[in-house]
């Protein structure tokens, strides 16, 4: 038992990540140890083969006790203590609870046999056998796509994982835009974890059986789970580099953005604030880079006369106490949600290079966090809410988002996103589309401008509305129609 701090005199092995016979390498995380103050991953100093686990799980032993014996080639068994990684404050609650939220339309192939319980994280059975057959090229591809090859069932000769297998698995990743994937059935998870031989039809899930990025039964350390929780990552979507594909805290920190549902989904813990911000910056960077890499954006902008909308707001708010007042962005969001009906190619997802329109309109609201970063959770069915309901929903969402209590469903299924940077004083914003969505509408500041109205120049409050559209789903002509529809709707605020 390594000493993980001057005040530590004993520790409890909560989880072994290796078993006798496993080959281990210097730096591998082999066990999870809990003390009164924290939970830590124990790394191993030297390479070798695990001969014996001396201390069973759940047993508390003093510092200095032998935990396990590692047989190095030709060497005597040695204890395997190791310094832990950064001390953790507390063990996270079980991470990655089964996410019941299927991404509508986005992952038809990934919907698992429903209703079966997902496996607990860090389950110790069904270990991934070491030595999955993977060529270096495929391994490289997998790394690039963020796929854990150990979790891909190979279809090549002798169970070899092929390029196609990895690509398919990667699509599974992508299909879950915000990392909230349906919890796979147990059989699916197990199938995915047994890389070489499992037919793709196990669990009746078809191709999905090959994917396990969404498996909640993923092996992970408590520290990794805690980091994942704090950074809002779905741990099941993170490719593990630990023994047997176990997800370590380092993997979580390095995980790409598409698995970050709510990058601030935890109560801020001051000591973790910097790490969290870094993780969020990385997550945003990765997601936006992917968007720019994959989505052929086109951009449009139009100036919308907000005279009527502003007057209507003023009149409406005049008789209301502050708690019931409306802001202009609510009208803009409602208009956007309604405009989708006339140009449905703006609302939905790209799935396998094909646009799938969504029948529902869930408007993602880009909300900036004061500690840095931005996330865009959804207001569900924004088109069906009254303006007052939408205002209440927006207030609630902004408040919760900034407190870090966004719901997974809100992160998983926005069908279109609205960003409003008007309060920051910018005139217009040309946003980056959130994959796999296909459109993002931006509103700038409402400013008074000279405008010609019926042959006379008048001063009117105006806003610049922009559209970032995905050329795979629509073109500029349709995008123009969409902005025109928004404009049209904002001219009749009382009907919104």
């Amino acid at each position: 038992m390594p000493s993980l701090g001057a005040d530590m005199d004993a520790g409890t092995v909560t989880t072994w990540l290796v078993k006798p016979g496993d080959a281990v390498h210097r730096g591998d995380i082999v066990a999870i140890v809990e003390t009164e103050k924290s939970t830590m991953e124990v790394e191993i100093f030297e390479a070798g083969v695990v001969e014996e686990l001396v201390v069973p799980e759940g047993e508390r032993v003093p510092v200095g006790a032998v935990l396990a014996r590692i047989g190095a080639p030709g060497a005597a068994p040695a204890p395997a203590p190791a310094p832990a990684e950064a001390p953790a404050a507390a063990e996270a609650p079980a991470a990655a609870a089964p996410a019941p939220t299927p991404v509508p339309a986005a992952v038809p192939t990934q919907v698992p046999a429903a209703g079966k319980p997902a496996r607990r994280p860090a389950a110790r059975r069904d270990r991934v056998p070491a030595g999955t057959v993977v060529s270096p090229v495929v391994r490289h591809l997998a790394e690039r796509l963020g796929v854990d090859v150990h979790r891909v069932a190979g279809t090549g000769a002798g169970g070899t994982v092929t390029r196609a297998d990895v690509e398919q698995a990667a699509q599974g990743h992508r299909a879950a835009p915000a990392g909230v994937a349906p919890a796979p059935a147990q059989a699916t998870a197990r199938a995915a974890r047994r890389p070489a031989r499992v037919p793709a039809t196990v669990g009746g899930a078809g191709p999905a059986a090959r994917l396990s990025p969404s498996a909640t039964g993923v092996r992970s350390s408590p520290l990794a789970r805690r980091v994942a929780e704090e950074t809002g990552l779905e741990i099941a979507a993170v490719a593990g580099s630990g023994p047997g594909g176990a997800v370590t805290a380092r993997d979580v920190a390095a995980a790409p953005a598409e698995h970050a549902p709510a990058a601030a989904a935890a109560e801020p813990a001051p000591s973790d604030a910097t790490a969290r911000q870094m993780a969020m910056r990385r997550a945003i960077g990765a997601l936006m880079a992917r968007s720019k890499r994959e989505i052929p954006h086109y951009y449009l902008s139009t100036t919308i006369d907000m005279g009527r909308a502003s007057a209507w707001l003023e009149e409406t708010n005049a008789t209301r106490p502050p708690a019931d007042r409306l802001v202009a962005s609510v009208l803009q969001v409602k208009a956007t949600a309604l405009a989708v009906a006339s140009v449905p190619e703006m609302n939905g997802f790209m799935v396998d290079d094909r646009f799938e329109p969504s029948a529902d309109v869930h408007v993602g609201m880009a909300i900036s966090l004061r500690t840095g970063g931005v996330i865009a959770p959804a207001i569900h069915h924004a088109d069906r809410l009254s303006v007052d309901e939408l205002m209440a929903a927006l207030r609630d969402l902004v408040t919760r988002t900034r407190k870090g209590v966004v719901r997974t469903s809100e992160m998983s299924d926005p069908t279109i996103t609205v960003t409003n940077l008007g309060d920051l004083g910018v005139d217009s914003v040309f946003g980056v589309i959130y994959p796999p969505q296909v459109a993002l509408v931006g509103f700038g500041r409402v400013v008074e401008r000279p405008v010609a109205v019926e042959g006379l120049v008048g001063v009117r409050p105006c806003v610049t509305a922009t559209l970032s559209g995905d050329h795979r789903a629509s073109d500029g002509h349709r995008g123009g129609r969409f902005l025109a529809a928004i404009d049209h709707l904002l001219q009749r605020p009382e009907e919104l």
Partner: protein
Amino acid sequence: MNDDDARALIRTVLGEVAPEADLDSVGADETIQEALDLDSIDFLNFVGGLHDRTGLEIPERDYPELATVDGCIRYLVAGVGAG
């Protein structure tokens, strides 16, 4: 309500609306909204908080008077009455 009461009230309400915001960092010539990066919903919540504690209506047309800290203090003291 005197100036100190008003400032304390502003601090309390801002603390609820934007816990990270530091009132002392707002310069005399700066607007609260810009200095503390408050969006329109934050500002509305701020106005709502002042309304709840003082009973003042604070109609939208008065918002400009609340732009700066000093303006807020003046508005609150005048509205509630110096007592």
